[in-house]
């Protein structure tokens, strides 16, 4: 069965992200094996280290064994769903740091002989975001950074026909509807 990866940053006081992640998992479970990365309970290091940056272009960019496990899931996933609160414009720094440390050369993309980026997430068929925001007008002012980052920049590393899905402050029924059809 295909693999779906749910990456959750449960940082809201009311734990909404965990409810959303659970609803996403339930909707995807019929057709896929679902794995979860919880950036808080797994105590993922929240910043790229000096060693990681120095090794970034070496083809051996992953230093942290936990990130190696996550990178393997990312490479195999056919669906990746990011679940997080948007505080201002971007995913929370915990999630941004995880992307910076996991979507590295050799995993998300490769650099060709001219140092040009070539996509490497060959299995990926859908990228999705489920987010919450207390002030949507603030997102608009900043140009909806999280959505652009995940559905445009990140998806450049997937095959051209990758599907995308974006839900802002959804209820359970909306999650079931949209993800049930993925």
């Amino acid at each position, binding site marked *: 069965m295909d693999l779906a990866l749910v990456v959750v940053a449960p940082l809201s006081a009311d734990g909404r992200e965990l409810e959303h992640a659970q609803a996403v998992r339930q909707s995807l479970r019929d057709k896929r094996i679902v794995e979860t990365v919880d950036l808080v309970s797994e105590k993922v290091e*929240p*910043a*790229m*280290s*000096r060693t*990681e*940056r*120095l090794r970034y*272009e070496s083809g051996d960019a992953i230093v942290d064994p936990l990130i190696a496990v996550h990178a393997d899931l990312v490479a195999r996933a056919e669906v990746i769903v990011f679940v997080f609160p948007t*505080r*201002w*414009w*971007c995913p*929370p*720094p*915990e999630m*941004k*740091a995880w*992307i*910076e440390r996991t*979507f590295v050369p050799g995993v998300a993309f490769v*650099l060709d002989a*001219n*140092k*040009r*980026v070539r996509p490497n997430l060959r299995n990926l068929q859908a990228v999705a975001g489920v987010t919450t925001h207390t002030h949507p007008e*603030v997102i608009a*002012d*900043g*140009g909806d*950074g999280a959505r*652009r*980052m995940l559905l*445009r*920049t*990140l998806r*450049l590393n997937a095959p051209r026909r990758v599907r995308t899905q974006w839900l802002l402050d959804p209820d359970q029924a909306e999650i079931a509807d949209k993800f049930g059809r993925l």
Partner: protein
Amino acid sequence: MNVLVAFCHPVPDSFGACLRDATVASLGAHETEVIDLYEGRDLPRGFTDEDAATLAWANAVILIYPTWWASLPAPLMGWVEAGLDRDGWSHLRRVVAITTHGSSRLVNVLTGGVGRRIVRRGLPRLMATGAYGRFIPLFGMDTIDDTTRHEFLESLPPALTRALR
């Protein structure tokens, strides 16, 4: 102006550090404070009480960072957000970003210029009336030659003079 320079790069002798040094050297007419987010802070939200005081003193903030995945690195985004959460930006008159991109200008236009939008639109609307942001990017960091990098460093003093007018 009182200028707070927030520098974010994990490697102390990176090109980013050259950008920081060139920036500080060209701010002679202004009072300047520099903070390094990778220097003894609790990441990714390394915003201290001392930072709150420095931010209150400042009229302008200059962010110097490598653009990763279209936007600010996690420690710098965490620092900016923590400052906004404490309402520490509402008196500021200028925000300037000096940033390197591995990708080309074209890729950044196509993917929506997330960092540029945050600096040009998102942040100024949370700052003082009439405040504005300036975005000073260097694209194609990995494919350009040293001459182009030097030209970028030399372009900083006049660009900063205009930005902090």
